[in-house]
C-alpha cells in the first residue's frame, strides 16, 4: 500500500490558521511532521495518513488536503516557505501530470464527472471525509493499539516470515503478494481492520533509517492460521511511478522478496475505529480497490469462521471490489469459492478490453435498491478502503442512493458518522 503512482491527496497544514503549538509534531508516531521558525509542515514521504495528528490539533489547520501528482508533491522546503496554502491544481494540470494513471486500480480520479465537478468547485466542496466515523461500531471488540513504536515501551517487535505467495496471475505487471508473518511468543493481538507498520532494513538516501510503512492486516483476529500467533498482509510490488519510470518501492519490494524464515521489524497495531461489528445479524458492506481488499478479506474470513462454527448468526456481507482487470484482482480465485448465500460479490473492472470502464461506484449504483435498505438499517456498517481518489466517488454514490430512495442525506450521512457506521481508510 505504498503511495505508488498517479495522484495523492497530500496532507498539508494551513499556515494561516496554525498556531505552531507543536502538538501535531509531538503526536505523530512516524516523525512526519517538522517545523522551522516559520511553519509546521508534513513530509509526504513519511506521512502514513494514520490521522493521529488530526483530533489533537486545537485549530483545525492540520486537516488540509490537496490533490497533487506524486511527482509534484509539495516538498518540506516548499511548505516551509508558505504564508498560505496553495490553491488546488486545476483539473487540466492534474490530467497532464498523469493523474489519469490513478485509475490503475479501478477508480477514476474523483470518480464520475459529477464528482470531479464537486471536487474542484471552490465553494461547497463535497467533503467525503466528513462522513467518515471516528468511533467504532458499538459492538466492536476493544483493540490494542501502539504496543510497539517510537512512543511505546518497546520500539519494535520481530516477526518471522512464514509464507509468501503471489495472489495475482503471473504475467501481469500487477504483482501482489500474500505475506504471512508469525510473532512467536511475542504479544501482538490484532483485530480485522487494524494495520501494522513495517520498518524496512537499511538507510534512506539521507542516511537515516527508513520510516515505517503501514499495511492493513488481511487476516482475522485469531490468526491467518486459526489459533496461531500470525497474521497476513496484502502487498503490491511497486516497480514504476505513474509516468512509467522505474522506481522500486522500498518496503513493497523488500516484503514481496521475503523468504520464509526472514525476520521483519514491526510496529503497531494501529487503528481504533475501522473495526467490524460483532453483534448477531449485523450487516457489513465492503467497498475496496486493489490492496484495499486486505481488511475486507480479514472481516470476511472472520465471519466465515464464525459461520462454520454454527454458533453465530451473521447478517449480510456485500462486497464491491474494483481493479483494472480480473487478472489484477487479488484473491480473485478464492473469492469465487465463497458461497453465494454467504457473501454478495460485485466486481468492477476498469480496463477489460472491449468493455466499458466500470468503477466501484458504478457497481454500487447498480445495486442501489439493496444498498438503500442497508443505509436505512442501523445494523448495517460500511467500510471503504483503497486509493484516496475513490473516497469521494463512493460517498457520493451512497448519498445519491439515499436521496433516490427518499432518505434525507443530512440525516443518513450524520447517522453514519455518529453511529460509527461508515469507515473510510484511503491512502
Amino acid at each position: 500500500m505504498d503511495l505508488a503512482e498517479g495522484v495523492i491527496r497530500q496532507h498539508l497544514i494551513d499556515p494561516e490558521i496554525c498556531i505552531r503549538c507543536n502538538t501535531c509534531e509531538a503526536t505523530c508516531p512516524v516523525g512526519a511532521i517538522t517545523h522551522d521558525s516559520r511553519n509546521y509542515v508534513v513530509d509526504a514521504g513519511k506521512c502514513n495518513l494514520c490521522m493521529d495528528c488530526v483530533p489533537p490539533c486545537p485549530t483545525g489547520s492540520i486537516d488540509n488536503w490537496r490533490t497533487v501528482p506524486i511527482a509534484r508533491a509539495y516538498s518540506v522546503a516548499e511548505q516551509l516557505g508558505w504564508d498560505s496554502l496553495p490553491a488546488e491544481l486545476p483539473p487540466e494540470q492534474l490530467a497532464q501530470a498523469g493523474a489519469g494513471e490513478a485509475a490503475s486500480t479501478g477508480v477514476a480520479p474523483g470518480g464520475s464527472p459529477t464528482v470531479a465537478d464537486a471536487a474542484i468547485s471552490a465553494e461547497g466542496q463535497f467533503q467525503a471525509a466528513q462522513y467518515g466515523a471516528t468511533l467504532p461500531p458499538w459492538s466492536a471488540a476493544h483493540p490494542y493499539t501502539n504496543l510497539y513504536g517510537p512512543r511505546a515501551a518497546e520500539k519494535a517487535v520481530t516477526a518471522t516470515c512464514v509464507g509468501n505467495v503471489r495472489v495475482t496471475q503471473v504475467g501481469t505487471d500487477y504483482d501482489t503478494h500474500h505475506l504471512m508473518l508469525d510473532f512467536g511468543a511475542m504479544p501482538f493481538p490484532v483485530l480485522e481492520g487494524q494495520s501494522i507498520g513495517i520498518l524496512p532494513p537499511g538507510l534512506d538516501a539521507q542516511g537515516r533509517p527508513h520510516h515505517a510503512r503501514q499495511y492493513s492486516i488481511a487476516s482475522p483476529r485469531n490468526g491467518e492460521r486459526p489459533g496461531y500467533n500470525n497474521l497476513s498482509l496484502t502487498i503490491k510490488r511497486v516497480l514504476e511511478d505513474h509516468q512509467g519510470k522505474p522506481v522500486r518501492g522500498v518496503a513493497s519490494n523488500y516484503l514481496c522478496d521475503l523468504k520464509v524464515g526472514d525476520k521483519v521489524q514491526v510496529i503497531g497495531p494501529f487503528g481504533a475505529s475501522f473495526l467490524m461489528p460483532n453483534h448477531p445479524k449485523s450487516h457489513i458492506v465492503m467497498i475496496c480497490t486493489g490492496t484495499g481488499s486486505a481488511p475486507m478479506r480479514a472481516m470476511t474470513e472472520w465471519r466465515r469462521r464464525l459461520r462454520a462454527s454454527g454458533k453465530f448468526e451473521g447478517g449480510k456481507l456485500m462486497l464491491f471490489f474494483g481493479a483494472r482487470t480480473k487478472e489484477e484482482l487479488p484473491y480473485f480465485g478464492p473469492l469465487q469459492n465463497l458461497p453465494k448465500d454467504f457473501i454478495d460479490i460485485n466486481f468492477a473492472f476498469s480496463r477489460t478490453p472491449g468493455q466499458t470502464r466500470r468503477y466501484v461506484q458504478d457497481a454500487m449504483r447498480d445495486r442501489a435498491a439493496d444498498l438503500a435498505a442497508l443505509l436505512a438499517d442501523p445494523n448495517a456498517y460500511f467500510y471503504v478502503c483503497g486509493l484516496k481518489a475513490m473516497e469521494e466517488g463512493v460517498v457520493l454514490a451512497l448519498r445519491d442512493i439515499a436521496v433516490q430512495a427518499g432518505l434525507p442525506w443530512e440525516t443518513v450521512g450524520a447517522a453514519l458518522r455518529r453511529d460509527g457506521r461508515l469507515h473510510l481508510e484511503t491512502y
Partner: protein
Amino acid sequence: MSTINYSEKIPNNVNLSEDRTLQRALEQWQPNYLQWWQDMGPDGSQDFDVYLRTAVSVDPQGWAQFGHVKMPDYRWGIFLNPADKDRKIHFGDHKGEAAWQDLPGEYRANLRRIIVTQGDTEPASVEQQRHLGLTCPSQYDLRNLFQVNVEEGRHLWAMVYLLHKYFGRDGREEGEALLERRSGHADNPRILQAFNEKTPDWLSFFMFTYFTDRDGKFQLCALAESSFDPLARTTKFMLTEEAHHMFVGESGVSRVIQRTCQVMNELKTDDPARLRAAGVIDLPTIQRYLNFHFSVTIDLFGADQSSNAATFYSTGLKGRFEEGKRSDDHQLRGQTYKVLDVQAGMLVEKDVPMLNALNEVLRDDYITDSKGGVERWNKVIEKAGIPFRLSVPHKAFHRSIGTLAGVKVSPDGRHIHDHEWNQHVEEWLPTDEDRAFVASLMGRVVEPGRFANWIAPPVMGINRQPVDFEYVRFN
C-alpha cells in the same frame, strides 16, 4: 460520597482503584472541588450543555472526544503520558541517573513549592474569567471560553493528584488551600500577581490566553523535563490541552484585528475616534493591551537572577525549554548569560552565571515564541493593505519583578525619566478610557452563527462543525 466508584467516576490512567489511600483522599477533595466550581466557576452557566472536548485517555483517539455536556458533569480525569521505564535524568547534577519514580526526600520542599505554584494558576484563571460568559461575542467564543475553563480545572486535578499521591498530609492541605485562595482577594490572594489581575473584557481574555497561557506552556515545558517522572509525565499531557488555550488567544486577537482592518478599509480611515464610533477596536488600543499583557506576563518568569532557579535546575527539578533538543553539557557550570542591568541611567547587558539566569533564559525563549504570533497578526494587517505594525515592547518595559522593577523604560527600550514616562504612558498602556470603551462593546451575542460587531467570525468551527453550529444549548 464514599460509595462512588471512583475508578469509573474519575477517568484515569494511574490505576486509581488500586491505591485506596489516594482514592479516599481524592474522594474527600472532589466535593470541595465541585463546590469551588459552583461558587467560582463560570457564572450562571452550570445548566448549559456545552460542546466540549473531553480527554478519556492519552492516545490520539482518546484525548479529543467531543460532545455536549453540562460543565459540572465534565469528567475531570487524571492522565499521565505513558512511562518510559528507561528514562534517564538528562540535565543537572544527577544527569545520567534513572529518573525518580518517587519523591526524593531532600527535594520535597522545592517540588512541593513548584507544584503548588503551578497548581495555583489553574483555578485562578477560572476565577478571573468567571464573568466573561455574560458578555460573549458569539456561541463559538462562549464554547471556547468554557473549554479553557474546564481544562484549567483538569490541570488543577493533575496537580492535586501529585500533591495527594506524593506529599501525604502536607499535600492534602495544599490541595485544600488551592480551593481556598481567591483571585484578587485582599486577604487570601492567588500566589502570582498576574493571576490576581482582572480579566474584565474579551480583548483582555484573548490577550491573556495568548500571552499568559503561553507562559503556562513554557513553565509546563520546563517541568516536562523534570527528573521527577510523575511530574514530567503529567505536565507533558497538560501541554496538549494548553495548546487550545493559546489557539483561543491567537485566533481571538487575530479576528479582532481582522474586523478592525475591514472597517478601516470600508470607512477609509485610521482615525481611532471614527473607528470607535463604528464599534470596532482601533489598532493603537490593541497595541496598548498587547503591551500590558506582555509586560505583566514576562514578570511571571521571576527575577532575572535567581538562586532558586539555579537550585531547581542543578537538582534536576525543572529544566529549560526543550532541554532535550539542546546540545550543550546540560549542567551549565561556569557558563554565563547576558541579563539587562541599569548603569548610569543606561540599559546595559551584563554577564552573569548561567545557572542563576535560568529564569531569564526561559523568559527569552518565551519572548521569541510570542513574537511569532504577533508577526502572524501583522500578516492579517498587511493582507488588508494597512500600513501599521504591532510589536512586542522591550523586555524592560513596565516591569515589576527583578532588576528592572520600577525602572522606567519606553516600549522601544530607552531608559527614560519619570517625566517622559508620565507624558507618554497613556500611549503605551491601556487607559481607563480605553478599558471603558472596550467594555462598552461587550454585549452578549448568542444566536448560532452570529458574531459581535467588533470581531470577525473564525475561518472554521470546532471539530469540523460549522461555524453556526449550536455550540452551547442554554436550556
